[in-house]
């Protein structure tokens, strides 16, 4: 029976079935974002509040003022460094976990993924305690070990934000690489070894290409979450070191300039979508054979 001859009821079935989900999606996602986009074109003044007119002032301000450039560049820089750090630490750790005895493996998987169950605020406060100004526990330890000569400033610096964000987001990278490692046939490693490959060659030529999809999807998750992170930069960075998310928050709730805050939020969203879609294209072309 062809689709044209199908009774109306059958044609409508997919729509009826996906209807509730579609309504929810439109209601809680499309409408708020569309309203934020509209809000970013409204005018604001201290005396009159928000004016429902259509102007480009907020966008002009966000795109030309060096203050905003600095914030967005800092957000990008922090996200890129956090993503690279998560790959550099998470990839070897996932591989080591995969080679452990099952008993230890389940214990350490719990240790590594367990922090996801604890609030980001609690974990970030832990870092704030460890950094603790100039005389925190980390600086004391490093000074005693002779690694550094003078205390490294962690609080209210990008270094501190990067360390704490890496800690918060690395479970996502390990989870992603771990999933990819589960699909790797261990016999491919043994086959390479039997053909005389060294451990480095095996890692580079056999294991790495097979887990690359996991690394890349993990990188996209970590990058997106790092760029839109709010709690960690707010606690570690404080008022001095703002990123795009805390900047939008400040415009909304401190200066009460909602239209400008909306412009910042929309620009962050558009920038993130552009970067993620762009890198996805690049990755799919570069690693086409892995995705087949």
């Amino acid at each position, binding site marked *: 029976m062809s689709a044209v001859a199908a009774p109306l009821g059958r044609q409508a079935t997919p729509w009826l079935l996906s209807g509730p989900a579609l309504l929810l999606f439109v209601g809680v996602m499309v409408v708020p974002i569309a309203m934020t986009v509209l809000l970013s074109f409204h005018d604001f003044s201290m005396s009159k509040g928000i004016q429902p007119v259509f102007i480009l002032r907020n966008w002009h301000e966000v795109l030309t003022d060096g203050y905003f450039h600095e914030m967005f560049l800092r957000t990008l820089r922090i996200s890129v460094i956090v993503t690279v750090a998560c790959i550099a630490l998470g990839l070897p750790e996932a591989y*080591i976990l995969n080679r452990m005895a099952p008993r230890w493996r389940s214990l350490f998987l719990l*240790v590594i993924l367990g922090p996801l169950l*604890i609030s980001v605020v609690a974990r970030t406060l832990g870092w704030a*305690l460890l950094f603790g100004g100039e005389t925190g*526990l980390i600086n004391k330890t490093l000074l005693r070990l002779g690694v550094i000569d003078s205390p490294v400033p962690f609080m209210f610096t990008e270094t501190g934000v990067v360390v704490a964000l890496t*800690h918060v987001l690395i479970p996502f990278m390990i989870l992603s690489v771990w999933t990819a490692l589960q699909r790797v046939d*261990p016999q491919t490693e043994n086959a390479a070894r039997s053909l005389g490959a060294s451990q480095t060659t095996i890692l580079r030529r056999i294991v790495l290409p097979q887990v690359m999809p996991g690394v890349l999807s993990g990188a996209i998750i970590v990058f997106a979450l790092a760029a839109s992170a709010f709690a960690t930069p707010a606690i570690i960075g404080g008022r001095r070191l703002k990123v795009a998310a805390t900047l939008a928050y400040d415009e909304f709730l401190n200066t009460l300039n909602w239209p400008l805050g909306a412009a910042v939020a929309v620009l962050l969203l558009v920038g993130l979508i552009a970067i993620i879609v762009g890198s996805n294209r690049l990755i799919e072309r570069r690693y086409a054979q892995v995705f087949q």
Partner: protein
Amino acid sequence: MRRNGPLALTFHALFVTFILAPIVIVCWVAFTPEGFLSIPNTEFSLRWFREIARYP
């Protein structure tokens, strides 16, 4: 399946320390007897837990 070498296990130990450090420190600081944020070294108290119980 080959076992992890000493280098891999050292990396793993450092990594687990990195993951657990901030969580352990938060729990540790909860036992401070002081009225401000401090890391208790010699004296421990349940003062702040009693404080929670007093204002349910």
